[in-house]
């Protein structure tokens, strides 16, 4: 019998549409898999068994009634706990929202439901999406299915690990500095950050509003494109949502899968091929560049001189926005309240609540942001970082006058051991060295598995111009067609 948890989303949707299996059977198979392995992986913070089976029954009934189902109807999906889900706990990996059941769905989740996908539950993450290893979750780290002693990346480690552990064929992440792509790279899965404004932030708990971008995670490039198509598109409830059609990402993924990149120019960034990356990662990247050239792509080396300042600029901009956004956690409207004994003032209760509810990384970033925005430091820190952001954007614009897309390793290193980088927060930040520039620019980027180093997955990143999301899917699918996929050892 076919193991339904090993199939791609496209395959599952085909079987459900053809009546060869039911959405309920598919859902139950994934719930059983979660029950069997998640005590070791810890990818899920909440499994919505009843809700998932009810949604699956709904799909089966609609199919029986002869309704035309969408391309992902009946396919299970896991959702990062940063997106609100009506009546289903949403913690953002934080104690400050423990037990909160939002009264509304985020736009992404609303679209997932409308498409007939089946939400299995909510996935683990670094608290408020701040981190690169999921070790900053208040609910314990997620473990990498490739090696349970290693990190699954972050902040969306739960969404990536759920795919690699065959607990879900699809998942949703959010990418502020690499939180979709870096977990994808270190778990051997596909993660795509859409163009900023291409997917709605309505109902996405805000970390850094000028950077936060929800996006798709999957085990194949086509599946990621199918999910992208379902969740993307203009949303009047998000004023930064782009009022333009979604690029044909599915068509591009199918075109790329034919393995022909003739006429495409790909840029290798000089600044990302020198120091900073492990030799094993660079070796896998170099082999992939050769593979892409064999598929017909022209490879050009070019310089983006300001990319080396992307990491420091990001770690001023993102904390600044976070210090403002997280002011809403005041112990009044939702979540935790600590120390309200009838005598303490609002301000005292607020300080005690935030002290008890936030973990150390969130506190560090709030304080860094408060510092960077304070008078006397504003110009030298936040103001200067915004100018550097302009220069990084100009680097991208200049590069895209020469090439169709840029490629690099997704991460400088493979999955590191749990605990290896928590003592020195800045060492953790280096995990996002190659992913951050795209966020500052706002364009789309995808990570696709490209090889192994020391038995652990390596990802290749494709960065495309703003609103040319289709282009990155074409390149990623072409690479996938030649290097194949990578299967972790049995759990």
């Amino acid at each position, binding site marked *: 019998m076919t193991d339904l948890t090993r199939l791609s989303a496209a395959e599952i949707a085909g079987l459900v549409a053809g009546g060869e299996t039911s959405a309920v059977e598919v859902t139950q198979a994934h719930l059983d898999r979660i029950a069997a392995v998640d005590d070791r992986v810890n990818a899920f913070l909440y499994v919505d068994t009843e809700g998932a089976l009810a949604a699956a029954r709904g799909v089966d009934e609609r199919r029986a009634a002869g309704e035309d189902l969408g391309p992902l109807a009946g396919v299970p999906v896991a959702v990062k706990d940063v997106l609100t889900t009506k009546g289903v706990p949403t913690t953002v990996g934080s104690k400050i929202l423990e037990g909160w059941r939002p009264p509304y769905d985020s736009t992404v989740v609303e679209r997932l439901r409308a498409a007939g996908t089946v939400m299995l539950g909510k996935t683990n993450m670094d608290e408020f999406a701040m981190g690169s290893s999921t070790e900053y979750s208040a609910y314990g780290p997620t473990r990498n299915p490739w090696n349970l002693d290693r990190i699954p990346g972050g902040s969306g480690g739960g969404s990536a690990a759920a795919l690699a552990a065959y607990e879900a064929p699809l998942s949703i992440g959010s990418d502020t500095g690499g939180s979709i792509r870096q977990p994808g790279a270190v778990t051997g899965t596909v993660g795509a950050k859409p163009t900023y404004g291409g997917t709605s932030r309505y109902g996405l708990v805000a970390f850094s509003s000028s950077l936060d971008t929800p996006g798709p995670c999957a085990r194949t490039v086509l599946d990621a494109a199918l999910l992208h198509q379902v969740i993307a598109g203009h949303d009047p409830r998000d004023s930064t949502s782009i009022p333009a059609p979604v690029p044909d990402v599915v068509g591009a993924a199918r075109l790329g899968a034919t393995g022909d990149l003739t006429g495409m120019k790909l840029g290798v960034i000089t600044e990302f091929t020198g120091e900073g990356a492990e030799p094993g990662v660079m070796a896998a990247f170099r082999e992939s560049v050769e593979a892409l050239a064999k598929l017909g792509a022209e490879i050009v080396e070019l310089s983006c001189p300001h990319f080396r300042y992307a990491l420091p600029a990001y770690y001023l901009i993102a904390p600044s926005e976070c*210090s403002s956004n997280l002011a809403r956690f005041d112990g009044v409207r939702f979540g935790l309240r600590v120390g309200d004994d009838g005598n303490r003032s609002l301000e005292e209760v607020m300080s005690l609540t935030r002290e008890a509810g936030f973990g150390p990384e969130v506190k560090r970033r709030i304080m860094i942001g408060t510092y960077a925005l304070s008078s006397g430091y504003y110009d030298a820190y936040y103001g200067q970082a915004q100018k550097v*952001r302009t220069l990084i954007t100009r680097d991208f614009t200049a590069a895209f006058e020469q090439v169709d897309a840029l490629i690099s390793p997704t991460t400088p290193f493979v999955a590191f051991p749990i605990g290896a980088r928590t003592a020195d927060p*800045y060492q953790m930040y280096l995990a996002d060295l190659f992913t951050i520039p795209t966020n500052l620019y706002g364009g789309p980027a995808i990570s696709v598995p490209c090889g192994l180093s020391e038995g652990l997955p390596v990802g290749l990143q494709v960065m495309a111009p703003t609103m040319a999301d289709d282009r990155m899917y074409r390149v990623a699918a072409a690479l996938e067609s030649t290097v194949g996929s990578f299967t972790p050892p049995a759990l």
Partner: protein
Amino acid sequence: MAAISREEVAHLARLSRLAVTEEELDTFAGQLDVILQSVAQVGEVAAADIPPTSHSVPLTNVLREDVVVPGLTPQEALSGAPDAEEQRFRVPRILDEDVAS
């Protein structure tokens, strides 16, 4: 030279409404110092005449039709509140006692 002192971190914690412990202050002071020294690299870039970018999407004055759409009921809006009374969020004391009495 340290970029930030323990006293400055204590001040930041107060501004941030974080009732941090003495032990946390010791840890954070060292960590924030490392982070701030690293991010200060942005100062190396000659950018005096460069305009700042706050946002990558060049949209301005995003408006919508002024029509009523369904929103949350008071009950839904208050459903996650730590304390509520008479369809309102109930907050701890906001005035000093001598003023309140």
